[in-house]
């Protein structure tokens, strides 16, 4: 191909102001920077913090939220929201515990099938009827919880995973000191990130979230893209619940209440815009870890309760979102 024509009009490069570059950088890597800062400060302040056991503990405790938040990331980037993940998480755990009596495969298949179906239902309703995702997933939050109650005798029955089941290993085994769920979460994040950044589907999710009209005009199958994000969210929430059940050894019925909000908070703190069209899996990962570190630090301090943790999280959320809003405004100007 020939070189660029002589008369090419040069767009003045100086146009990219430093403020804009900084803003872009902050938006993309802000969560990571804050996480590293938090890790550093905590390690310096608390002796017990930087121990391998403590860090491994943070990792395993966060791993379940990571998986749920991964699904939420897809949904939010695609312009939607999924309030049902907490209930689906609990449902997944109960189903896994109940099915574990028939082996590892059943223990994984049951939650994936049912929770995937719920996710699919969410997606289909939202994509086909145009009802607000907020309300539809609110309804499935209730519905999933209802389903959970139905299969556990109104919450009375807690299914136990058989003590010799292989399934338990999945939740309790370790590899190089880190629990299996941590490795699974990391692997899923890597896959998720790949899906989002390096496949046509991922680009489609960004496009649909960024501008549904444009995406439609550009020939993308908008309904299918949206439905798949909800399917993914349901599957991942169910899987996380199953792993959690493996770790606990039983299907605890009261879990997951409010988990969707933790997931949303983590996704937002990680740099994903709630309006859709932008965000990364790595950001979400940082967001979850940051919340985990905060919780851990507060426990280290000892006297303060987990309530302080939620205050800090909430304040954090506000600061992040306001900053995001401000940064978007800088980047919008020409």
């Amino acid at each position, binding site marked *: *191909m020939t070189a*660029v*024509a002589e*008369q*090419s*009009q*040069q*767009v003045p490069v100086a146009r*990219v102001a430093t403020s*804009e570059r900084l803003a872009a950088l902050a938006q993309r890597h802000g969560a990571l920077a804050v996480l590293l800062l938090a890790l550093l400060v905590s390690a310096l302040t608390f002796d017990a913090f930087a121990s391998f056991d403590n860090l491994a503990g943070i990792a395993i405790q966060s791993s379940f939220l990571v998986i749920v938040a991964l699904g939420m990331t897809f949904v939010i980037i695609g312009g939607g929201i999924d309030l049902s993940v907490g209930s689906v998480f609990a449902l997944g755990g109960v189903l896994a515990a109940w099915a574990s009596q028939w082996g590892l495969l059943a223990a994984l298949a049951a939650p994936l099938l049912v929770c995937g179906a719920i996710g699919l239902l969410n997606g289909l309703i939202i994509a086909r009827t145009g009802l607000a995702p907020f309300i539809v997933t609110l309804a499935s939050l209730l519905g999933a919880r209802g389903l959970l109650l139905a299969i556990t005798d109104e919450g009375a029955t807690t299914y136990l995973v058989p003590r010799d089941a292989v399934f338990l290993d999945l939740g309790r085994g370790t590899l190089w000191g880190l629990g299996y769920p941590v490795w699974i979460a990391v692997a899923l994040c890597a896959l998720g990130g*790949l899906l989002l*950044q*390096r*496949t*046509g589907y*991922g*680009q*489609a999710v*960004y*496009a649909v979230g*960024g*501008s549904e*009209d*444009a*995406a*439609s*005009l*550009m*020939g*993308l199958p908008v309904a299918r893209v949206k439905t798949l994000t909800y399917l993914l969210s349901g599957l991942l929430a169910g899987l996380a619940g199953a792993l959690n059940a493996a770790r606990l050894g039983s299907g605890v019925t009261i879990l997951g209440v409010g988990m969707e909000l933790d997931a949303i908070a983590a996704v937002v703190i990680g740099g994903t*815009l709630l309006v859709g*069209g*932008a965000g990364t899996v790595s950001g979400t990962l940082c967001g979850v870890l940051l919340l985990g570190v905060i919780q851990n630090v507060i426990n280290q301090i000892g006297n303060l309760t987990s309530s302080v943790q939620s205050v800090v999280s909430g304040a954090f959320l506000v600061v992040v979102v306001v900053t995001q809003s401000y940064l978007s405004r800088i*980047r*919008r100007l*020409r």
Partner: protein
Amino acid sequence: MTPVLEVRAVTKRFPGVRALDAVDMAVLPGEVHALVGENGAGKSTLIKVLTGVYQADDGEVLYRGERVSFARPLDAQRAGISTIYQEVNLVPLMSVARNLFLGREPRTRFGLLDIGRMNRDAAETLGRYGIDVDVTRPLRSTSLGTQQMVALARAVAIDAKVLVMDEPTSSLEPREVRTLFDVVRRLRDQGLAVVYVSHRLDELYELCQRVTVLRDGRVVHTGPLEGLERLALVSHMLGRDIGRVRREGLTGFTGEHAATANDTPVLRVEGLTKRHQLHDVSFDVRAGEVTGLGGLLGSGRSETAKAIVGALPLDSGSVSVDGRRLRRPSPAAAIRAGIALLPEDRKAEGIIPDLSVRENIVLAAMPRLARAGIVTRARQDAIVEMFMTRLRIKAAGPEQRVAELSGGNQQKVLLARWLCLHPKVLLLDEPTRGIDVGAKAEVQKLVDELAAQGLAVVLISSDLEELVEGADRVVVLRAGAVAGELVGDEVTEDAIVATLVAP
């Protein structure tokens, strides 16, 4: 030569109006074909029929010699008809390269996206269009000119045979327009057919070979641009014969109020400037006078009106009422100063659809009519009844939902809303557009009465007749700047048209 895209006797009806009436138009390969017409002429409807948004009720659409019927825009696009809109229809948050290749990204051996190649190819493609920009930046951080180019490059890359460009230059800087035109000419030379919709006459004459003029849904002229005088072109668009004699009584205006005007202006507008939209617009408006704002579509009339009431942030300029300058411009401040604006788009910016006629009328005046924050129905009812009678608003009653009224009555409701405030200055943006003939005449008569009572009225209208018969003086805008001002006897259709086209 067979036309690549053609419509024959195409008709499109909507409830109550015939948007397109037996339209014939043929676009040849290797030509840039201008499509012009004022608002309501049918331009956008025709474009929508060509690109699959609408389906024609009668007649046929032929693409490459064969009858086609596109069920939706995607079908037209796949067939090779691409559209570039005024508002860039790409994804603002995604990078330039990703936008360019969305849906057809280059893959690596394993089926994953090859981002490196995508970026390289994007840079190269845009380079051929004369654009040198970092393709990994989000689209919205690039200039609009670049964004248009990306849209253009994408359209061409997906193998378009026909390119429809709808007002592509309205937000571009002159330099970017040059680049765009170079590219379009190159594409044309390669055999692409372009349908170019614009009302910037200079551009049309520079770029296009043939022109089709629409008016009231019909084709009134089609032919080469070379040799067609600008005056003749505009006359076709506006429907005036050159040198036509003005007839009496075509509008409701009687023009009997000019005598009461005094010399000190009630409203003084100075140096209104906003990048791409307004350039140093200044004029005065006197009490008892109707000042018309004339100009073609896109000349900045509505923007001027919005800027006056503080609804459009300005780069510079000032608005003064009775000598006092409006300090922090906002609609509320404008209302306090005595300025009222009847906006152009009554659906998006006018009526509150679920509220009643009464509530819509008293909306702006509510604080004045209330006592200690409590709504006083008695006062409201009195005002509402007065206006419903005076303006002859036809409704089942003041409690009827305003969304159920006809366009003309909705307009009257909005007018009543502003009159409730007893403003000193009333800006009317296309007050008679989209309403029936009877209501039109009523509104025009009302404007006369208001001026006679001492109100200062600014009348924006695309209807030349209305402007000529209703206004005492006319400020003519062109491309966001004042092209000229006509007073009294100077206000004739010919003079307005001449000012419009003068280079």
